[in-house]
């Protein structure tokens, strides 16, 4: 199994020569995400290990297949951490986390994936090894291909090594649950929270089903994470009391958020402005209700105006199956699954953006591709001219298909 960058590059170059599509696989957590994507498996999970870690610099370089669990363990020994908490949890590889730009509740204060990555090494679709960025925390040398590869889902290159920024672990780190006061509207509740002199590390609104699954509350509630020096955390915790029903919960409640996501689910990320957050939350809730998706596992980062919506489905045929409305496990009824175009289109309120992460294969046809513009297609052509990397994962444009046909005719070397 190839583990060095050179070995992987040879695989890519030969796949390019024969026009063979490659499906990049790291830890395997993302195989059911994105559109149907066929191809010979290119394993990068074995391409793992920490390359350089200088605690004094708060930077770390690791091979793409290194898991977040390993990075956490190594950095924790020096009182540091990689402040990324993607939905795939700590089993996720760092390569996949960056390729999918997958972040979590921490992003509101610690930055999104694009803010954490300093540099990377990757293999383009022509089998060439390139580097972008560097290992230092500030760098504007050359065009920013680091940002380009972050969130490109491996369609512009196979990420093999990554340098990232670390943080020192806070002295105190704790979590609180704030029950939603049924008499107050969500807007006024969020407004009074916004008025408090607090600066949370993370702040998530949880749906009833998610709060129940976490075993922290029996209804919609806020999950707040406070961190910093002792003075600061205690003072902020005291401020929270103004909101009424506030209870401390184990800080690993945040980690458990990702562990609760079922293996088989429909997943969407809905974003709008922060001021529209309550409206977006209600719209999505109403839509799921109307679609008889009872009690979805839903959470939202208020300050980002972002919602993560998870609707479990039956494994077997991938089709959602009906359940009783009072069942804590959510299901999309089979009858409604046929109405995918409507379901997919109407989940986001006007002006909001929905990015689907997981859908049944046939439903993707109703979701427009996010890389169909001229520039994105051009970038794809520039870095993966034969379209062999994760082909189809983000949706091929017509121009792409024409190029493929042309590339085939010309018999690329």
């Amino acid at each position, binding site marked *: 199994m190839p583990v060095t960058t050179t070995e992987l590059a040879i695989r890519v170059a030969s796949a390019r020569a024969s026009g063979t599509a490659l499906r990049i696989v790291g830890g395997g957590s993302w195989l059911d995400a994105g559109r149907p994507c066929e191809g010979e498996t290119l394993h990068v999970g074995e391409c793992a290990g920490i390359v350089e870690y200088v605690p004094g610099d708060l930077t770390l370089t690791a091979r793409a297949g290194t898991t977040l669990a390993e990075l956490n363990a190594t950095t924790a020994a020096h009182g540091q951490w990689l402040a990324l908490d993607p939905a795939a949890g700590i089993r996720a590889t760092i390569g996949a986390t960056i390729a999918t730009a997958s972040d979590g509740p921490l992003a509101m204060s610690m930055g999104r994936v694009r803010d954490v990555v300093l540099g990377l090494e990757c293999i383009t679709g022509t089998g060439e090894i390139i580097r972008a960025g560097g290992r*230092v925390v*500030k760098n504007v040398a050359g065009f920013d*291909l680091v940002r*380009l590869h972050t969130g490109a889902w491996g369609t512009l290159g196979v990420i093999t090594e990554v340098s990232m920024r670390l*943080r020192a672990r806070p002295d105190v780190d704790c979590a609180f649950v704030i029950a939603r006061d049924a008499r107050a509207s969500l807007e006024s509740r969020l407004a009074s929270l916004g008025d408090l*002199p607090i600066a949370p590390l993370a702040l998530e609104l949880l749906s009833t089903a998610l709060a129940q699954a976490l075993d922290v509350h029996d209804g919609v509630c806020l999950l707040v994470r406070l961190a910093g020096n002792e003075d600061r955390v205690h003072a*902020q915790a005291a401020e929270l009391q103004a909101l009424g029903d506030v209870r401390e919960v184990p800080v690993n409640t945040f980690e458990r958020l990702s562990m609760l996501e079922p293996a088989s689910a429909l997943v969407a990320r809905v974003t709008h*402005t922060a001021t529209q957050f309550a409206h977006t939350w209600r719209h999505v809730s109403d839509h799921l209700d109307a679609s008889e998706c009872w009690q979805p596992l839903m959470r939202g980062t208020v300050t980002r105006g972002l919602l993560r919506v998870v609707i479990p489905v039956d494994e077997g045929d991938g089709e959602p199956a009906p359940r009783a409305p009072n069942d804590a496990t959510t299901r999309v009824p089979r009858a409604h699954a046929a109405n995918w175009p409507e379901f997919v289109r109407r989940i986001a309120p006007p002006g909001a953006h929905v*990015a689907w992460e997981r859908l049944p294969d046939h439903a993707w046809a109703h979701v427009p591709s996010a890389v169909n513009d001229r520039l994105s297609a051009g970038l794809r052509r520039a870095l993966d*001219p034969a379209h062999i990397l994760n082909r189809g994962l983000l949706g091929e444009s017509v121009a792409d298909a024409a190029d493929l046909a042309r590339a085939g005719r010309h018999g690329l070397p």
Partner: protein
Amino acid sequence: MPSDHTTSAVATARATRVAAGSAIAAALAQIVGPRWVKSRAAELTAYDADGLPGYRATPSLVVLPGSRDEICAVVRLLAQHQIPFVPRGAGTGLSGGALADGAVVIGLNRLTRIHNIDAGNRIAHVEPGVVNASLARTLAPFGLYYAPDPSSQAACTIGGNVAENAGGPHCLKYGVTLNHIAAITVCLPVGELITLGSPVSEPDGYDLCGLFIGSEGCFGIATDIWVRLLPVPPDVRTLLADFTSVTDAARAVSAIIATGIVPAALEMMDQATIRAVEASIYAAGYPVDAAAVLLAEVDGLSIGLDADVRVIEQCCRDAGARNVRIATASDDRAKLWQGRKKAFGALGRIASHLVVQDAVVPRTKLPEVLERIHDIGERHNVRVCNVFHAGDGNLHPNISYDANDPVQADRVHAAMSEIMRACIDVGGTITGEHGVGLDKLGYMDDLFSEPSLAAMCAVRGVFDPEHRANPGKVVPVHSCREWNARWNLQGLP
């Protein structure tokens, strides 16, 4: 100093056509009005340099559009005639990125409107010519601010900040321009308008907005920029610590970073800089016998701030600080900052030219690199003054000199070149916030492999297939030729 100061032969030939063709000037005048097209030699002189000393390049024409539509019309006209152009903001850039050798300069200083401030969502929609400091003033009544604060903020524009991915003292905690831009509307070099990113949501797909930031005018012209804003921190403390050795000060930096406290700023000035400041009208009362001073700032919620201050003070004292001054009131804090803010002004008074270098090293390498810089300066008989963003290892070694004296200039160039290579040797990079422009082109080969540079060229080609936008900058021309040759062989565009 890099020798790759070449605009391609093609560009030069086209430029000659421009000079010959007053028809172009007339057509541009039709779009923007005759007042806003500059073609006389005396007018062009004002645009023949930027903040990089020792370089001059005269544009063939300067055009100053007054709106997004005019930008597009100008760019389309230039595209029709295959004329290279250089977008320009305030011309304060320090890497020669705004130099236009025969190309048309598109000046964006007339575009100074702040279209909208959405205080609730902490986002402002601005034109590219808005001056960084004037945005700050406009935002003050809202209790908001825009975090990136380059030293040139009194003059530099948001468009220029986007082009260079500008930083500043406060990006240690808050990040550089990249971290504060939600969306950009771009006029591509073919004249097509496109919005990258989104002001109202987080789109999926490729991060084209992130890719555009720091592209140094090579990917097109930003016509509209949506900047993210931050609430003004409720409380701030500033510390000034002085040290008898640079190494001690550098050790204090590492110790502070290791505590987990992220200061809003952590700046260092060496003795040469302190003395220059104290000898100038900007004298701030820094101790002239100190080998280095460290300026640290923490901000945020009032509670817990004093605890942070105590930790930082202890780090400084443990590292050997002689004295630590702490300021809370805004006047007192301004006094501590005065020397740092005016350092470049003071250095500029020493000689006719000041080269402000920019490189980044891993923070733990600061003591070693500062020592090497000192040795290099001595060897080349130039006086290097260091004033820099210590917290993120972003060095600014500066040399005051007379660029018109070729012997002096050669010594300065030789010293700077050695300093850059010393930074690369320890795993650093050639620019943290000034950009590559023309000045750093010669170091790109040291930093990136040929395929890496070729990939950058290919990406540029997607935005600008003819390489007419800021030609000859950022990526050495030979890399592009090789990439193009490879594509041509394969029969692909």
